[in-house]
């Protein structure tokens, strides 16, 4: 038998928070994927909203290229507030 397509599942645990990836389910279509996701990942009130996305639709960066991929941020410590010295008696900055 051929597997049903794979869907990645994202749960919003409560209003105001982002959806977070929790895992995946197999399902023949989006509607059934949502129901499977509900039954698999939110049996204990873990969420208020669900997203399912076809796994094949996700383009991921290549882990073997991660050094080059994220290199541009590596030498830019000046993007952090702690790079700058402000005297202790100057407040709220």
């Amino acid at each position: 038998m051929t597997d049903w397509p794979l869907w990645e599942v994202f749960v919003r645990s409560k209003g105001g928070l982002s959806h977070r990836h929790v895992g995946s389910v197999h399902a023949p279509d989006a509607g059934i994927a949502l129901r499977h996701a509900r039954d698999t990942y939110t049996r204990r009130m873990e969420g208020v909203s669900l997203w399912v996305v076809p796994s094949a639709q996700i383009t991921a960066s290549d882990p073997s290229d991660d050094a080059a991929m994220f290199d541009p941020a590596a030498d830019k410590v000046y993007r952090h507030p702690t790079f700058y010295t402000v005297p202790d008696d100057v407040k709220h900055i």
Partner: protein
Amino acid sequence: MYTTELQKTASLGATEDPERLAAFEARVAADEFIEPKDWMPEAYRRTLTRQISQHAHSEIVGMLPEGNWIGRAPSLRRKAILLAKVQDEAGHGLYLYSAAETLGTSREEMIEALHSGKAKYSTIFNYPTLTWADIGAIGWLVDGAAIMNQVPLQRTSYGPYARAMVRVCKEESFHQRQGYEIMMVLAAGTPDQKRMAQDALNRWWWPSLMMFGPPDADSPNTAQSMRWRIKRETNDELRQKFVDITVPQADALGLSVPDPALRWDKARGHYDYGEIDWEEFYAVVRGEGPVAKERIAARRQAWEDGAWVRDAAAAHARKHGRREAA
């Protein structure tokens, strides 16, 4: 960077289903977040679309006064820092456009409204940046005022806007500190450098206070926006907070705030400050700011100059798509 709500809020239509409206009002009053697929009154959607897109436009236009100093920064260190700050402003604009798009307005429509002059953005960017000290003053005062405005927006009632603000606030802190550092160096420098720092403070102080928007008495949108938890503090409350924390920072620099009426009111526990020139503010809102035309012309030019990059990306995608299909 930030913009206050600069246009009239549409009044609540009589067409909304009263039951749904009551349920919505109750959710918001209970500090629940509203998410894109939730039902919301049209006036809430319109107000937020306008506020978030104005905020996004302010980030994008805010790159222009600083961008023209990148090539003239006094050292490689300062150039790298300013470049990083301008990159952040672009990022903040993109977070905000994305948040606004969840309300059903396309990116294209928003960009078009900015370029046609229909959309507003913060009045602060229609003032010129005349010297290097202005880059210090902008980071210290303009980003300082923006942070003051944006911190409470992390708890605004619309989820995507609140989450964008969390990211923005986290990144904004370096903007203010690098500006203050520039001011510290100039204020401790030669007499000419100190004069330059004082001159920048003189020119940016009042426009920074105007960034918080009209006084509460003349801000008809405030009550509705507070009730819907779009806004969490009034214009005057935020302005007072800004004055209270910024004046001691000016003192520490040995610079004086250009306001003869400024004095500590012991009884109130706040600084009293002089009358703001609201005529000037409304003139700038109407598009009569000193460099308003220049800013939009520069923005349009940047968009047109970038056309070949967009065309090349589209051509690459077409070619790549054909190869993958083959």
